[in-house]
């Protein structure tokens, strides 16, 4: 048996990590967030919102061309100097932190709603976070493998809702483009939260094996396209099945798709769906937890990622127990995630511009 090399991943694992970091909680509430604005064309919004991950993928490709062995954090330290670079990186981690809270609380509120309503928030948060810490301590290679396994498990989750095709109607999604281009674009802005997590591609490309480095472009684009297809697929199916108004009434609209399945002796298909879904979400939490502690540990050379993982545990327990219920979670995300996202966009764009306009010093310290 081959030993697991600590942080060296193949380009396939890199792809799965990106997909795994995105796909998670966002999917279940995505259609109703979009349908509030763009109504029956929400699925077009979901596809148009894919511009954001595509843009990040493009920047990643540009950056990897210049610095194949330095991730965004060390490049930033080279560009802005050690001190400013570290501080800007810490701000960069804010998005990951907010996203991590969003995913964890989302997973918890769903499991409380559908599976373990008898457990308290504190108990669930301990279970979820211990898994996240354990997974993160095992290192990037293991996370890559977990993501690879979950990537294929996800296809079961994609196949279940296909049953809804027999009960739905094209009348629910027509007139296509009927809600107007402006509203479709408005809606697509909302879908960006669902795509957040894609930023991990900026962190882990130096860890890809040297002989696989040529495939990084392929890996980033593939993962982004897979996510766009999955999101468009789920949003379309949900609206096709029930129509745009009821989608906005349900808090987790994708769960309605399970009602299309009526099997004898199985009371409700929700539990089966949740069973697979919760495994996939644990992987999403682990991936985001790891990347969050990875950035924070990069702040100074003294910090060890394992210590940060443990420290983050207590911080997260504290944060989760403040914003655990769905209303508080939505308010928290609405207040924060737009700012951190815009900051990250500007930050990464500026770094890309700077490294491209400083010519001839590819191998120097900038």
């Amino acid at each position: 048996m081959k030993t697991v090399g600590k942080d060296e991943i193949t380009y396939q694992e890199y792809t799965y990590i990106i997909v795994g970091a995105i796909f998670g909680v966002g999917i279940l509430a995505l259609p109703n967030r979009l349908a509030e604005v763009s109504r029956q064309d929400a699925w077009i919004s979901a596809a148009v919102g894919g511009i954001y991950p595509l843009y990040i993928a493009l920047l990643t490709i540009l950056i990897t061309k210049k610095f194949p062995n330095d991730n965004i954090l060390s490049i930033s330290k080279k560009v802005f100097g050690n001190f400013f670079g570290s501080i800007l990186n810490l701000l960069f981690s804010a998005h990951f932190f907010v996203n991590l809270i969003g995913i964890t609380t989302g997973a918890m509120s769903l499991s409380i709603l559908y599976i373990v309503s008898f457990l308290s928030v504190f108990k669930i948060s301990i279970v979820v976070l211990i898994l996240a810490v354990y997974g993160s301590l095992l290192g990037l290679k293991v996370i890559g493998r977990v993501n690879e396994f979950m990537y294929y498990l996800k296809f079961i989750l994609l196949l279940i809702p296909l049953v809804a095709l027999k009960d739905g109607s094209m009348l629910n999604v027509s007139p296509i483009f009927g809600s107007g281009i402006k509203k479709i674009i408005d809606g697509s802005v909302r879908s960006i939260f669902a795509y957040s997590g894609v930023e991990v591609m900026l962190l882990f490309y130096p860890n890809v094996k040297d002989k696989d480095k040529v495939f990084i472009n392929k890996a980033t684009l593939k993962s982004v396209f897979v996510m766009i297809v999955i999101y468009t697929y789920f949003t379309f199916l949900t609206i096709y099945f029930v129509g745009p108004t009821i989608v906005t009434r349900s808090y987790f609209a994708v769960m309605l798709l399970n009602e299309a399945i009526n099997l004898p002796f199985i009371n409700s298909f929700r539990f089966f769906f949740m069973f697979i879904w919760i495994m996939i979400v644990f992987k999403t939490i682990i991936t985001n937890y790891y990347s969050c502690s990875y950035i924070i540990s990069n702040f100074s050379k003294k910090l060890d990622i394992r210590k940060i993982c443990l420290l983050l545990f207590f911080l997260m327990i504290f944060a989760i127990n403040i914003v655990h219920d769905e209303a508080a979670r939505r308010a928290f995300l609405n207040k924060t995630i737009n700012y951190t996202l815009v900051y990250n966009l500007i930050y990464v764009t500026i770094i890309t511009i700077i490294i491209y306009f400083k010519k001839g010093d590819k191998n120097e310290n900038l």
Partner: protein
Amino acid sequence: MKIYKLYIYLVVVIFTFSFFISGVKRYAVEQLAIDSAIGYDLEKSVEGIEIRSSTASRYLVTEKQVKSINVTTRGETIPKLREERQRRMDKKILLGLEKVYVIGENYAKHGIRDLLDVYFRNPDVRDATLLCVCEGKAEDILKIQVEGYPSAGDYIEGLLRYANEMNFFTENYMLIDAYVRLEEEGRNLVLPYITAKDNIFEISGMAVFKDDKMITVIPSPKLKYLNLLRETNVSGIITLQKDSDKHIGLFAISKRKVKCYKENDKYKFIINLNLSGPIVANDYEPLMIDKPGKKKEIEAKIAKNLKKELEGFIKELKTEHKVDALELGRIAAAKYGRDTGVDWNEVVMNSEIKVNVSFRINRFGRGDL
């Protein structure tokens, strides 16, 4: 040294287990009350206060047989009557395994939105549970004991589930259908209307809703026309009768296609019905299998008769009920845009609705006696 480690592990395991188990209520299956059906009624008291009541028809499993007992409780709202119910129950109610929800006539007329909201919120309720409206009070309906059945709910469930074999019923009388039809633009809810006569239940009509209020019941012979005009891919019997001896009966499968036009700000709907099916009984024209001319004649005659009856029904819908029970507004909304603030009930009922029927006999059976 090793034995200490074992002790530590043991303590950790026990501690973790007791931490997660503490404060968790667990019930054995004997402690749960499982309902077969729940009925809802609404009365107005003398002071004008609405009193809702619910009847839970609960299974009672004894050694020899399964029976059911009914518990009826009253309250101003559904949460209040639930609280009341637990005061009379010896067990915890397990929601989510009901087979059918029976809505009393008065409740349906008053509006069922609050009832559906309760179910839409609850994550344990199965969205495939059937819904129906009953004549009079649901309490009285659920009291009836049908021989061989543990409860009335079991019988009603079968009644609704297999209604789609004939009379052009669909299977879509479940909770999820009610949510969708209540909320989506241009749609209206219809539910089977159940009556009990001599301890036997029957679907005697279709309750037609406008928004969340029942406004009318389409009685038995006409409910076929409503279903035909409203649904697609449904089956039922079509007959052509000269007199009691000379008749032809056909088992037809209907396919509906609706076209919608807009002319001078007026909508125009054309409902195309394509029916086809085998002959069930034929005294009308013996050995029709060899008479292609006669077959065509009969097909045209059936189509013409049906068309006339359907047109009459649409006229009645337009003049009396004034509700778009055919869901034509949905088709217009899908073509000409949603969220325009149009009241589809009014628009559709004031626009021209044409019906085209085509009929085809496709099988003759194994012989002609």
